[in-house]
């Protein structure tokens, strides 16, 4: 095995000391002299025609600097995917959900801005609203967007192999329906932004975003400015989980106000507005039919899915494809069909959230795997291993598993959870369940059609070689990417981690598509590695000339120059270095030539040593419509075992523990890999047990705070055993691939399978609130006694 000096260790994160001491700066921590405060007027109605907007009273209020509506902001359409731009900064003719933006104010204080918002008079004609998929699809239902008849935002129809023929060969066919609820990502930092424009016309937007690059492009398009005149920076970001992966209207409004007024403008979402903006996981209804032979061989899968999309598309086109595409693995499955429908209605738009599109489909499918195993009397783990794809296999929809430690993951959780001893032997009320899952390590294509590099990285040595400075436009949003890239660069050059400094999250530093689809470790990691290697090569080449040694015989390890054969006499170089630093007391006296000396010499010969790196995946996927979605250079995979105790009388579920094994390829930072696994599990538990966004019949979110939207607290989190499985991914930098999203895939179905094991009844609707579990137990009892 290749020996690494920096990666594959438990490294303290670069940002942790600042974050532990309160020094780390997040967007709302920044203020500017003369800064104005922005506030928005949002629709109180789920569906209404705007008859008139009167801003005159608001404008007259002292301290108000501007009141803007679509008149000032324009009506350029934007969104996530160019194929479906269906939003404007402000509603023009009508509002489509409670929270649709109508106008905004900038004022000298927040208080005045809010008062001014209150003074804007809007006359509405309230229209009938549709709040569910069912109502939206009814004949004659009110239409949200004229262009999309029947409120159908998108539909997908795919078939790979021949499903009907496949079913004919099956001994067992299972059909189940599974429903989930809308989620909220519930990151702790609410969206905030600060826009400012300098005297030369450069607009700088500082924002809590996962994707400075896409925000930059959207701002450029909507404001009609050159990309070169716009700089988007993200300071530290308090989580995103997919919701901050596109430009939001607040960012656009803030830029418009700043440009108009030539003053810095700051805007913040309240927690309530976070819920109004939404863009988190859709509500899914899956109808899945799986066919297998009696020896357990999977043959065919028929899948139908309905997505409750809300008023706009956001990531929805990708979501509806992802929901289908990612069931083609990790099991060998020759025949698969998918019919997906994303439906508009008068609720806030849904978008992408950790495990984009695939989480509930996975939850439904993995339960069917258990049903089949039960029916044929096979251990659920055996059934999965029997059908498991191997490294190098390609799914029926052309996804290639270039590395695949799935079976190793299953074995690890089998042993780690003591599965063989527990499965089938636990008392009533206690249960054990497992599931598998996999996910992309970065989308194969950018969101907009382009041949762009997905990321670029610059690495520059300080003139004394004391530090490698890394510049990347990637987005550290809490996942630990800054540390991972610094480690990769340190490894690539051959220097200790403490000699690498890194700056990120700024569009001035290059192109990086950002933190979504679990892409950064693999993609930006590649670019970082290449930039580091580029620097290393330049230093070694200078050294080779100076020492008259072939460059192939030189290496850098732990900050020292290694010579493969005989160490040449480098005393002249050392003397030259020391002469450069007269009066300094820390002159090198090591037996080995140091990297510092070598890079100083390189600088003296060549000037600044700058390395660049870039990455763009090779062409991936098939040729059918939608083939791009689901493609990735690599796939991470995982298996989990959940143990639960169900209070049969009340329906309350306690998760006793979870054992998780994840194949992330070669782990860069073990701390971060385990952290992603544990965090994914916590989010999965919340979604499985108590998270749902609840609306009233007016389309208002009832539980729009973190008291009533119930994420996992410290009291709910079970002990987690996180086992890192390291395959060697040929397409990954140093063999690395994803962990950020794949790790959530098995959590929900593992819990569902464990609950079934505990109470003998399957529950087809999430979340598993005590009441839902109680009702299921009662219904089961009645059925049994009848």
């Amino acid at each position: 095995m290749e020996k690494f000096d920096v990666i594959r260790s438990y490294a303290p994160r670069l940002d942790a000391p600042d974050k532990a001491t309160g020094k780390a700066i997040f967007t709302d921590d920044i203020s500017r002299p003369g800064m104005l405060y922005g506030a928005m007027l949002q629709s109180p109605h789920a569906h209404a025609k705007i008859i008139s907007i009167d801003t005159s009273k608001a404008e007259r209020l002292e301290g108000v600097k501007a009141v803007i509506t679509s008149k000032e902001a324009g009506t350029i359409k934007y969104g996530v995917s160019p194929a479906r731009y269906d939003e404007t900064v402000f509603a023009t003719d009508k509002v489509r959900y409670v929270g649709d933006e109508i106008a905004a104010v900038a004022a000298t204080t927040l208080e005045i801005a809010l008062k001014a918002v209150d003074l804007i008079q809007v006359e509405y004609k309230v229209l009938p609203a549709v709040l569910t998929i069912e109502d939206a699809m009814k004949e004659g239902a009110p239409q949200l967007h004229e262009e999309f008849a029947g409120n159908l935002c998108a539909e997908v129809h795919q078939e790979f192999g021949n499903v009907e023929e496949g079913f004919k060969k099956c001994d067992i066919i299972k059909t189940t329906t599974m429903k989930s609820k809308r989620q909220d990502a519930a990151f702790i930092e609410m969206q905030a932004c600060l826009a400012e424009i300098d005297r030369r016309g450069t607009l700088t937007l500082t924002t809590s975003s996962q994707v400075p690059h896409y925000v930059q492009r959207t701002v450029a398009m909507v404001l009609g400015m050159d990309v070169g005149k716009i700089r988007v920076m993200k300071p530290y970001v308090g989580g995103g989980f997919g919701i901050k992966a596109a430009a939001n209207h607040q960012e656009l409004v803030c830029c418009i106000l700043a440009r108009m007024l030539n003053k810095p403008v700051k805007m913040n979402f309240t927690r309530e507005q976070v819920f109004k903006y939404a863009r988190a996981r859709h509500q899914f209804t899956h109808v899945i039919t799986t066919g297998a032979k009696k020896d357990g061989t999977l043959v065919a899968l028929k899948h139908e899915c309905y997505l409750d999309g809300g008023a706009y598309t956001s990531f929805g086109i990708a979501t509806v494809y992802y929901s289908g595409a990612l069931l083609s693995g990790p099991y060998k499955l020759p025949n698969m069909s998918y019919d997906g429908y994303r439906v508009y209605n008068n609720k806030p738009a849904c978008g992408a959230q950790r495990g984009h599109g695939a989480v509930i489909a996975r939850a439904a499918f993995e339960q069917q795997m258990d049903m089949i195993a039960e029916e044929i009397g096979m251990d659920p783990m055996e059934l999965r291993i029997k059908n498991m794809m191997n490294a190098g296999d390609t799914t029926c929809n052309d996804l290639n598993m270039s590395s695949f430690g799935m079976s190793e993951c299953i074995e690890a959780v089998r042993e780690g959870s003591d599965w063989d001893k527990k499965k089938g032997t636990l008392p009533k009320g206690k249960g054990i369940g497992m599931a598998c899952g996999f996910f992309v390590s970065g989308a194969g294509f950018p969101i907009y059609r382009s041949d762009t590099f997905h990321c670029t990285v610059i690495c520059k040595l300080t003139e004394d070689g004391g530090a490698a400075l890394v510049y990347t436009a990637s987005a550290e949003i809490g996942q630990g990417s800054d540390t991972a890239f610094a480690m990769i660069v340190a490894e690539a050059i051959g220097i200790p981690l403490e000699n690498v400094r890194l700056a990120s999250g700024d569009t001035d530093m290059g192109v990086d598509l950002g933190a979504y689809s679990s892409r950064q470790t693999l993609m930006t990691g590649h670019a970082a590695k290449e930039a580091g290697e580029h620097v290393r090569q330049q230093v070694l080449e200078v050294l080779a000339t100076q020492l008259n040694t072939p460059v192939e015989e030189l290496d850098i390890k732990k900050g020292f120059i290694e010579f493969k054969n005989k160490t040449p006499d480098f005393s002249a170089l050392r003397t030259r270095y020391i002469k450069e630093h007269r009066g300094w007391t820390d002159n090198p006296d090591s037996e080995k030539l140091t990297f510092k000396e070598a890079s100083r010499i390189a600088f003296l010969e060549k000037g600044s040593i700058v390395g660049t790196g870039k990455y763009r995946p090779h062409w991936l996927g098939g040729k059918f419509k939608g083939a791009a979605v689901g493609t990735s250079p690599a796939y991470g995979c995982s298996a989990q075992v959940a143990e639960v105790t169900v209070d049969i009388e009340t329906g309350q579920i306690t998760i006793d523990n979870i054992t998780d094994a994840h194949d992330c390829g070669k782990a860069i930072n073990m701390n971060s890999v385990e952290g992603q696994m544990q965090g994914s599990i916590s989010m999965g538990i919340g979604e499985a047990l108590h998270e749902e966004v609840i609306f009233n019949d007016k389309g208002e979110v009832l539980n729009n705070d973190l008291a009533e939207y119930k994420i996992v607290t410290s009291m709910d989190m079970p002990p987690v055993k996180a086992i890192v499985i390291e395959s060697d991914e040929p397409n990954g930098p140093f063999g690395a691939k994803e962990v950020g999203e794949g790790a959530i895939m098995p959590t929900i179905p593992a819990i569902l399978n464990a609950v079934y094991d505990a109470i003998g009844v399957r529950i087809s609707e999430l979340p598993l609130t005590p009441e839902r579990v109680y009702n299921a137990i009662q219904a089961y009892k009645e059925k049994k006694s009848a």
Partner: protein
Amino acid sequence: MIFTIFCVRHYEYDVGIDIFLSTYRFLYDSAMDYQIISINQKGENFMLLPKFEFYEPTSIQQAIELKKKYQGKAKLLAGGTDLLVHLKKKLITTDHIISLSKIKDLSQIKEERDFIEIGACVTMSQLSKSKVIQEKFSALKEGGDNLGNHLIRNRATIGGNVCGASPAADTLPALLVYQTQVLLQGPDGRRKVAIESFFKGPGKTIIKDDEILTGFELPIPQKNCGAHYIQLGKRKSSEINVVNVASFIEINPGNKTIKNCRIALGAVAATPIRSFFAEDALKNKTADETAFYEAGEVARRKDCKPIDDFRGTAEYRRAMIGVLTKRTLETAYKQAMAQ
């Protein structure tokens, strides 16, 4: 009277009059006139507090004078965990806030021979740490320990929890089973009211505009008594109860019959209520599993009148009253036997 559908949770002082837990929306549809305040009807999005005058009286007398002066318009501030949230969310407004934190008398737990007096501004954390509460009023401790989370418990006061008059409030069932007297003081002097008759409805109490709740008097339970409290929610911290129950039991140690028993149910009526039918069913019965189960059944069928809301259906609430009643009785009994 304005009720809101907005389901605010915690626990505070005297804002209750305007606050209506969604739990009780349907129950009162016909009985009372209410209006649904749409959240943010005007796009007021930021959580700024309104402007108000702020008073910090140092004696109860001063506080009463202020309250009298502003009649119903002043709000009392104790822990702030409800009042400030409601003000920020614009569920209520006020021009005058009277802080009680400078009145030291209100923050004490006094132990007398036969009873204890808990000041209105005693926090949940204080309750939890108090020796006499731990030893003699364990159900109240459990109630306080389950309220919100550690941060809320450091601020939320028992007076606030009671005046909020939420049917699901954590300390109320225990206060009911311990036969608590509510101590009120106004310009005309003091009065004591049995806690059963203190609540008039969700967020509604019998406190007059010029009165202040100063504390609670709880008789110290005698030997052979035990009590227990259980709440049911969706997660294990920071919860708003779907239902909650406290039971108090006094046994004849000789024959293990139930001499006395009190059961209180939360979130199944407009106020927390006593489960009188279940209590009657247990009187003089031998304390055993069957008796406790049957008491639960009686409580479920006869005593509770729950409604549906987004936290739970009436049917589920009913069923859980049965389970929690039985379980609280079992633990209370064990405690009584252990004495």
